[in-house]
């Protein structure tokens, strides 16, 4: 049902169904990846604008929300082409509560994540953070579900390797990372 199909009311009602189902998940998706809350909400707006304009092309369940993730992914890609994921997240987290210095696993995981190739990082986060199954990830990325399984398997191994590497690197370091490898604060440097 696009702008040419159905009454305006029917169109709005159809959009409402899609919107209500997808809004929290699209917001979550954008918040995890955007530089700021404002940018995230802006991406959400652009995403739903696109959905509204392309309402005719929105696939039926169960592909509806993954298709919208795909839209949001492209919106964010345009918004932050070339920008650094970690920098975005650091900025975002700085707006709220920063991770505790004691939360070493959090820092390790994000350091490892940053060293992964973007496609590994993306498929892992879609699976784990956004809780999409292989079929849904395939819709988001525009690839076959069988390819998702293979990529996920490889990405998981690479993440494990990077976590190892991060742990070793931190063990060697005399200056423990506090938050995402930023410089330690006063009194945070380990004594010789």
């Amino acid at each position: 049902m696009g702008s040419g199909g159905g009454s305006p009311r029917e169109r709005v009602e159809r959009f409402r169904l899609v919107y209500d189902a997808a809004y929290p998940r699209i917001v979550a998706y954008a918040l995890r990846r955007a530089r700021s809350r404002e940018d995230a909400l802006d991406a959400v707006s652009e995403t739903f604008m696109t959905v509204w304009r392309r309402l005719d092309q929105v696939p039926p369940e169960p592909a509806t929300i993954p298709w919208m993730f795909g839209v949001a992914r492209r919106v964010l890609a345009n918004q932050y082409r070339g920008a650094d994921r970690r920098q975005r997240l650091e900025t975002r987290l700085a707006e709220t509560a920063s991770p505790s210095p004691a939360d070493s696993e959090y820092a390790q995981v994000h350091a490892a994540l940053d060293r992964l190739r973007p496609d590994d990082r993306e498929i892992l986060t879609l699976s784990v953070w956004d809780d999409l199954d292989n079929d849904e990830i395939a819709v988001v990325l525009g690839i076959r579900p069988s390819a998702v399984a293979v990529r996920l398997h490889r990405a998981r191994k690479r993440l494990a390797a990077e976590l190892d590497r991060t742990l070793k690197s931190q063990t060697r370091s005399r200056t423990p990372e506090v938050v995402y490898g930023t410089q330690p604060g006063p009194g945070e440097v380990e004594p010789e």
Partner: protein
Amino acid sequence: MTRKRFDGDPLEALRRSDPLDRLEVPTDTSEAHARALFQEITQMETMKTETPAPRRRMGMRIAFGMASAVAVAAAAIGGYALLADEAEPRIAGGEPIGSGAMQMCIQFDEATLVAQDMAFDGTLVGIDGSFVSFEVHRWYKGGEGDTVTLDAGYPVDDVFVALEGAPLDEGQRYLAVASDGFLWSCGYTVTYDSDLADHWAELFGA
């Protein structure tokens, strides 16, 4: 130096490191941004403006809308919203403002008002969710008959008032406009005022 290995499940570690756990996330669409965005998107269709808004960031447009609404609200104090005109002030609206949070409102102008499909003087006689029914006393444009039912876009409740700034109360008489079956609020549908009704009659040539 001790050599360590990460010996947990990397995916579980990743799950525990979801940054969203540290961020504020709306859990449903009752949150103001969700409702405001829905209204803005769906009203873009019904507005049918000839000159689309510049591709300014939507969040900014919402913010600007809020700012302009506040300006209109300020002007509305005392009963009328007066739009400045080089020659003379013109009455534009009755008591359009219910709150200062009309996030979805566009800048009021009479060209937009006149461009709507329907305009009438009517008393609100029924509210059913988002649908509102009016007993029509006079049609200025479009429509016919003694009653009309329109979609307000959202259930008429406190949130609606917060978004639209137009309290809709049964028994209240309004000067109302609508397009494509949707009632326009945001200072376009206003509480009845006889001077304003005369102005509308002139404006619509009715």
